[in-house]
């Protein structure tokens, strides 16, 4: 008997190798749901033809919300009827991505009842991604998820689902309670998550220390990155233990310190804490000997984004140090001030980082009432956005008076 040939030879290639394969997973889903087989066949066709068969956007959502559902239709509905509608639902993940097995089963059961059963844990913003929902199934899925304590996340021109590292729940380096802050901001800005009213997206990300495990500095419109303002804590005996066990402290720690503020004489490690830029390198290499200080908080940065419309941006410091204590009112006031300005003056699809680049950081700071400080300057004498006009004026006036 002739061996049955695969209908998806190109996709089958992606099952090879030791790593997880989305093709394997979709094939498993296809055993119980015809959406899975239509999806595989359409994808195989796209790979063969090198043509995308998905149409994007439009009006799909749940009642009252403008975000959290991303419309997808295929352009060959007669041939792939089970995935004629294949919308994505973004579900707000719990802070730190903690689930009980019961909660995970609940989400999966709901999704198998109403959708394709295919998930993506998690999307790049952090949400639980449920892939493949018919328009008619959106509202029942949402209602059932809501009954079980889950809500839809953000999409479009709104506050995207805030995300955070697991912070103090498991990480000794966390300089503030990231999960508490993330939850607080999520609840405060429910309206802004569900009802898009901005020029474009806005992302909040909370990292407990400068290791920045949620990549806030590169992805968030506003980043809250944990830091400290006293000295790095040091256990001198533990430093010697590292040396005894063969760590080359000179080569692997001292010479790699970006601020060149560590000295090691073979017996004692000295850190000039005033020059330290809090990069975490030395702490990462000697975690038993070094720890962040105890006067902790967060550095607030603004304006990063991945390269979609303009190129990629990294964040700029806007508040060098803030004690992260609830209810974070000063920060919320600042955020709302920035939103007002951006909504007023921002162009359609302009992220706040691009807006700042267009109007100039100096003008932006002035408009939102933040004083420029030295910590905002990445490279002394290279930064064009700080002007000291008032000092020039005073000096000029003094000179003029002297001349008279």
């Amino acid at each position: 008997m002739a061996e049955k040939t695969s209908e998806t030879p190109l996709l089958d290639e992606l099952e090879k190798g030791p790593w997880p394969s989305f093709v394997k997973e979709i094939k498993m889903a296809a055993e119980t749901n015809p959406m899975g087989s239509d999806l595989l066949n359409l994808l195989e066709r796209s790979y063969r033809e090198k043509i995308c068969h998905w149409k994007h956007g439009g009006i799909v959502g749940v009642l009252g919300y403008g975000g959290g559902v991303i419309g997808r239709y295929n352009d060959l509905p007669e041939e792939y009827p089970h995935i004629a509608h294949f919308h994505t639902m973004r579900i707000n993940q719990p802070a730190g991505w903690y689930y009980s097995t019961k909660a995970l089963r609940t989400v999966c059961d709901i999704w198998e009842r109403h959708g394709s059963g295919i998930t993506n844990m998690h999307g790049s913003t952090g949400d639980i991604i449920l892939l493949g929902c018919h328009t008619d199934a959106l509202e029942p899925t949402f209602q059932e998820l809501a009954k079980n304590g889950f809500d839809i996340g953000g999409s479009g021109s709104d506050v995207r689902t805030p995300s955070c590292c697991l912070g103090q729940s498991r990480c000794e380096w966390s300089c503030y309670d990231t999960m508490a802050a993330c939850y607080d901001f999520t609840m405060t800005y429910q309206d802004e998550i569900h009802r898009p009213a901005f020029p474009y997206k806005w992302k909040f990300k909370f990292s407990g220390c400068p290791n920045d495990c949620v990549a806030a500095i590169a992805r968030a419109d506003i980043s809250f990155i944990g830091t400290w303002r006293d000295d790095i804590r040091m256990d001198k005996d533990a430093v010697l233990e590292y040396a005894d066990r063969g760590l080359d402290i000179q080569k692997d720690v001292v010479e790699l310190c970006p601020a060149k503020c560590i000295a090691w004489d073979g017996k004692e490690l000295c850190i000039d804490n005033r020059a330290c830029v809090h990069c975490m390198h030395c702490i990462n290499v000697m975690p038993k000997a070094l720890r962040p200080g105890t006067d902790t908080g967060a550095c607030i940065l603004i304006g990063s984004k991945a390269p979609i419309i303009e190129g990629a941006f990294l964040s700029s410091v806007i508040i060098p140090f803030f004690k992260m204590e609830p209810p974070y009112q000063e920060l919320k006031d600042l955020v709302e001030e920035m939103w007002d300005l951006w909504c007023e003056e921002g162009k359609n699809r302009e992220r706040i980082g691009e807006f700042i680049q267009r109007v100039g950081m100096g003008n932006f700071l002035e408009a939102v009432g933040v004083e420029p400080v030295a910590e905002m300057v990445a490279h002394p004498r290279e930064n064009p956005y700080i002007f000291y006009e008032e000092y020039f004026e005073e000096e000029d006036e003094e000179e003029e008076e002297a001349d008279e």
Partner: protein
Amino acid sequence: MAMPIEEIAESMYKLVAEAQGKKKLKAMDLTKSMIELYGDEVDKKACKQAVRMLIDSERCVYTYFGGSYVELPHKEGAAPPTD
């Protein structure tokens, strides 16, 4: 004197209806227009509530085409015809 939310919503609805098929309006475009039209009688908070009223009553819907807009409900162009 502050304008009632219902009246702001009605005025916004007219703008959305007039623009339908010609120009897509964002929630903030509606807010800016209201402030232009009614000055001190409206504020951003009241405008936000008015948009909410239009959406919750299903007289308007949010749409997404690269950005998020407020429009009248209509048949989704990308949806397959045999719905």
